[in-house]
């Protein structure tokens, strides 16, 4: 079986799209251009690492602005998760991330004084199709933005008659109509990246992972609790499976921050949580062959 694939960089990682349908070179080139331009547009809108992004502009302007067409899905999700987690999952963590050193220059040195992020109510007036940012804040969609872009690219591929494909955004994956029926995917050992701790079989769904192992600086990793201003250490990695990569991506971060039952009451997803002593918890629907024993 020939696999057509192409790669590009976006959302701070390397993306690979594999197309299993037989497609001509011309079609592949067209798809590749469409996908790359979609990814670029996404970053122009939502990246906190780009000073010229729409999201940074509206934070500077602090005026009522019209939201981009695709903003509703992600703002609704962040608003609802803010509510059900009592503000522990918040896009306003962006301000703290910059203070703590995870800024667009990667200074990685925390400022002397660190502040709790403001509340949603004090900072954001969200009323689709309008939004107004009321203080000098940094909105960060890092916990689910990549998943959302996976969903957007998935729809773009389908709209262009591509039906059998895999999107791999640096370890967050969506697979559609895999030719073997189910795709075999390893679960990376966060303590030894040349190893896996298990294997799952996936089709027409997304698996996303979060772990504190790669983006570390000072005493932080990329998931920070806004109430304690610290990064969780009892969980070392999470994997989540959902129909939507947006949901899977958001849940993989949320599991570090709040109890799983809060999330399971609100969203359909399966999970595997790996703790620092290598014991684990998983939902019954997380069908994996695990090399771990509790």
């Amino acid at each position, binding site marked *: 079986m020939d696999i057509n694939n192409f790669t590009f960089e976006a959302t701070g990682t390397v993306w690979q799209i594999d197309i299993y349908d037989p497609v001509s070179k011309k079609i592949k080139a067209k798809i590749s251009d469409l996908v790359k331009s979609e990814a670029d547009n996404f970053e122009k809108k939502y990246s906190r690492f780009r000073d010229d992004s729409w999201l940074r502009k509206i934070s500077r302007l602090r005026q009522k602005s019209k939201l981009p067409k695709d903003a509703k899905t992600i703002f609704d999700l962040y608003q609802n998760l803010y509510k059900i987690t009592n503000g522990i999952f918040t896009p306003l963590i962006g301000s703290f991330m910059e203070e703590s050193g995870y800024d667009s220059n990667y200074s990685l040195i925390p400022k002397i004084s660190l502040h709790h992020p403001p509340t949603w109510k004090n900072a954001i007036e969200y009323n689709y199709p309008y939004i107004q940012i009321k203080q000098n804040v940094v909105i960060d969609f890092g916990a689910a933005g990549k998943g959302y872009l996976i969903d957007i690219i998935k729809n773009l591929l389908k709209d262009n008659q591509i039906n059998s494909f895999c999107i791999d955004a640096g370890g*967050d994956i969506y697979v559609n109509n895999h030719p073997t029926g189910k795709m075999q995917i390893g679960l990376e050992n966060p303590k030894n990246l040349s190893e896996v701790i298990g294997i799952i079989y996936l089709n027409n769904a997304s698996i996303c992972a979060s772990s504190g*192992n790669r*983006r570390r600086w000072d*005493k932080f990793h990329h998931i920070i609790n806004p109430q304690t201003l610290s990064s969780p250490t009892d969980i070392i990695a999470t994997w989540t499976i959902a129909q939507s990569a947006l949901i899977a991506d958001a849940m993989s971060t949320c599991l570090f921050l709040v109890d799983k039952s809060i999330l399971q009451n609100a969203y359909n997803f399966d999970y595997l949580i790996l703790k620092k002593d290598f014991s684990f918890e998983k939902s019954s629907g997380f069908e994996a062959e695990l090399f771990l024993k509790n």
Partner: protein
Amino acid sequence: MEENHSEPESKPDQKNSNFLPMAVVFVIAAIAIGVYLSQQKPATHTTNTSPAIEITNEKSSDTVDTVVNTYKDGDYEALGQYTTPGGQSEIGLRIKLEKGIIIDSSVEIRANDPPSRRFQQEFAKNYKQFVIGKKIDDLNLTKVAGSSLTPKGFNEAIAKIKAEAKS
């Protein structure tokens, strides 16, 4: 699997090799000593004001499963001896092999003095990450779900800070 505090059972399936347990115990003992030493560190580190930077090694050194590819399936057990500031100490290890890969293991705490017991308990809680897991290359996996590849800028910044912290 729980760590095992009881006396070892009679050796159930000790196949035709003594080398394997010795090799594994050597690695385990090295880790145990590493755990021991890392436990000692904080007390002597209080004057260090440089930022604590931790970075994960992309290709950390091979764990034991590359050593054991030629061994038969079954259960193996062995004792490891090492010297501590408090004298000789001993730790027990049992592993289960399948197709040359360690699929389960347990540690038996055998130290008598309280500090060594404490370190062995700490070790028993944390050693599994080094011995359980399978090589991606051996499994022929083309996709792995895990944390994103770190952006280049982040890694460069970490390297810079580490260099500054040393100078």
